[in-house]
């Protein structure tokens, strides 16, 4: 027992340490890329970028104010939306469809499009039977660009605090292109090669039919998996190539790929914290933010790993050898500890990929996953996660300033009514979306017996599944309890709307606050300034996050996972 536990725990500790190390290195690299400093990748990529800039008529030196930048972001997202709807509803007769998969229904196409557009990747379709390879490649494209959208928006915020006073905060197009050419593409290529080496398929062939050793017929789905999976994690997208996501042996062949997938999804969010530190020339603040986020992460991950290793008490009571823990819905080559770790890293960061079936996790593990998404800023998704954290930061500065009777200031900029209104609205929007949508769904479920087919597990778990779906949608996470039958107009459309409202208001609001603050007059630091780069402020920040984000959900959590916990104990 001792040695089993040791190697399982060693695996996740090494994974985390590597993640932080690579994140720090990447943070410095990303700073150089976005600020235009020379890097090792210049010789290779500058010619490509120059070509792209010339074709697209992007002037690298040109800068815009926040409104122009957001117009650009929205219009390019609109273009992707239109292409995606056309493509997904016409897959049947388009090329790269060797398995003769039919086109998506409009409501399914709507849900899928929105969900990949907003970096969420909630999947109500079954990939093996409901999407062609062309569709998969298109979704892969959306995974690249939605991640780059988040990163570019995040850099706009960083830029706003770099200068003493400016109204033009940068160029969304340039940051967007560079995110892809300098960060996402090279890292994806590197990962895909390692994944192929470990046995991940990469082809466009039709399903294989074989006769097994015991003479059963077996049909095996394959496809361009190795191109899809790296960006799925690097971009914190999380949409699975297969239904079982990264529990599928083709999508996650062994423990090494499992480690790499866990590392890949966290490095850019962690790196961006340090990029922020370089941009604002205050690395101590970056470390404080990192500590606050890590604190939240550890408080969620340690219990989850422990609970999954402990396993299900009801199964232990049957008297079998339960040392491997809660193996229902998990894979032997990955183990319960790595699955416990994954369940939290994927929900605090808005990846939403899974390497085990989330519905079969222990009740309080599910609660911690929900909490990760409800806060949605402990590391957070690429770009978008930091933007959420930035909102909490503004709130904490305001509250702390009020408490000590000082003018709320952040980086030498006065925070006034207009910024606070945006921040307060955004912080309230998240619980509003989740709780109202869940309540509405429960109402419909209770009053129309036809909808009883939505959920499979009886009792509080069914409630948790619905709460989870909307939390995942609002947090743009994309993980789900697979037991929920979500491929029907109600869920496709309602989660689609929640997804939209979970993404664009927070990006636009975050950039708007930065834009508004950026053009204010710089106030030099004095004895009356509330210093944000202190660990005391870090504690206040953490408290604000817990009080505002976590407590508003407590009643809902006690109806779902907490009630289920008491059912089995």
């Amino acid at each position, binding site marked *: 027992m001792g040695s089993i536990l040791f190697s399982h725990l060693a695996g996740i500790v090494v994974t985390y340490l590597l993640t932080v190390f690579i994140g720090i290195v990447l943070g410095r690299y990303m700073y150089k890329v976005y600020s235009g400093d020379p890097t090792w990748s210049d010789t290779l990529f500058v010619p490509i970028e120059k070509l792209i800039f010339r074709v697209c008529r992007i002037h690298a030196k040109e800068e815009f104010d926040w409104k122009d930048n957001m117009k650009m972001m929205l219009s390019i997202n609109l273009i992707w939306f239109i292409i995606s709807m056309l493509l997904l509803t016409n897959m049947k007769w388009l090329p790269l469809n060797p398995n003769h998969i039919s086109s998506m229904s409009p409501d399914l196409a709507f849900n899928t499009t929105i969900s990949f557009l907003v970096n969420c990747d909630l999947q109500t379709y079954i990939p093996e039977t409901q999407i062609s390879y062309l569709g998969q490649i298109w979704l892969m494209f959306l995974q690249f660009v939605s991640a780059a959208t988040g990163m570019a928006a995040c850099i706009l915020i960083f830029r706003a605090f770099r200068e003493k006073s400016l109204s033009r905060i940068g160029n969304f197009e340039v940051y967007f292109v560079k995110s892809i050419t300098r960060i996402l593409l090279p890292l994806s290529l590197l990962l895909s090669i390692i994944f192929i080496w470990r046995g991940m398929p990469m082809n466009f062939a039709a399903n294989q039919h074989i006769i097994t050793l015991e003479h059963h017929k077996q049909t095996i789905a394959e496809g361009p998996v190795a191109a899809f999976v790296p960006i799925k994690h690097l971009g914190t997208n999380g949409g699975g190539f297969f239904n079982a996501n990264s529990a599928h042996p083709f999508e996650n062949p062994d423990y090494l790929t499992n480690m790499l997938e866990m590392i890949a999804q966290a490095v850019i969010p962690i790196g961006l914290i340090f990029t922020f530190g370089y941009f604002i020339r205050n690395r101590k603040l970056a470390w404080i933010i990192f500590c606050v986020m890590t604190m939240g992460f550890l408080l969620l991950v340690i219990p989850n790993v422990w609970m999954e290793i402990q396993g299900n008490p009801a199964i232990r009571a*049957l008297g079998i050898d339960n040392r491997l823990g809660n193996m229902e819905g998990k894979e032997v080559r990955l183990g319960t500890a790595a699955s416990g770790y994954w369940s939290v890293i994927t929900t605090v960061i808005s990846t939403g990929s899974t390497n085990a079936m989330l519905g079969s996790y222990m009740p309080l593990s599910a609660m911690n996953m929900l909490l990760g998404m409800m806060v949605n800023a402990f590391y957070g998704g690429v770009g978008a996660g930091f933007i959420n954290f930035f909102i909490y930061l503004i709130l904490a500065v305001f509250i702390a300033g009020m408490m000590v009777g000082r003018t709320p200031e952040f980086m030498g900029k006065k925070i006034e009514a207009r910024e606070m209104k945006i921040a307060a609205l955004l912080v309230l929007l998240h619980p509003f979306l989740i709780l109202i949508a869940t309540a509405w769904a429960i109402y419909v479920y209770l009053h129309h017996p036809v909808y009883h087919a939505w959920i499979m597990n009886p009792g509080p778990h069914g409630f948790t599944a619905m709460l989870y779906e909307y939390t995942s949608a609002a947090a743009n996470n994309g993980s789900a309890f697979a037991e929920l039958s979500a491929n029907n107009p109600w869920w496709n459309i309602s989660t689609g709307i929640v997804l939209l409202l979970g993404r664009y208001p927070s990006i636009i609001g975050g950039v708007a606050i930065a834009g508004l603050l950026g053009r204010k007059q710089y106030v030099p630091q004095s004895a009356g300034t509330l210093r944000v780069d202190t660990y005391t402020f870090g504690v206040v920040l953490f408290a604000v996050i817990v009080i505002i984000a976590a407590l508003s959900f407590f009643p809902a959590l006690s109806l779902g996972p907490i009630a289920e916990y008491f059912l089995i104990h």
Partner: protein
Amino acid sequence: MRYHLFKSLIITTCMITLCCFGYVLIVRLSAVFFPGGGLGVMIRDAQQQIVGYVQIGQPFTSDRYFWGRPSAIDYDASQSGGSNLAPSNPLLIQQVQERIKYFETRNPGIAVSRIPVDLVTTSGSGLDPDISPEAAFIQVKRVAQARQLPEQVVDSLVRAYIQPPLLHLLGPAYVNVLQLNLALDKLSSSL
């Protein structure tokens, strides 16, 4: 706004060229240099027929073979997924109980306390190709009897097929069921 949309269209075209054509092509071409050539690692028999993929589990039910984990989709690899049963669902406990009973009848003389949990619970993908070393060891007696082999021989074969943790340090040890069963067939035919 029209200017923005026009520009968006050009940028999108550029990025599609880069990500959907350039990147995918490079990855597809580099796959040729690895085992399986991007088709997954296949095992072929003497007649060059594919008998399986190393990574995709197969159903095994006879006494002569080591069994893999229960699968919610019956190892149908044209789909994937788990049972999605909640830990509080009475159906889950009932299923596990039935599997324990079934295992006991097919493996007489094995104490219930030795049955490892991975042998009586379904996997996440439904295609899990592996079992824990403990799950292999408790089947040694049955397989050895069915094949009329000495238990020590089968036991040492299992030992040889245990995949140690990554770098002997990280993660679980496990046994690939298909590879073990193929080795078993080879052993039986050579005797």
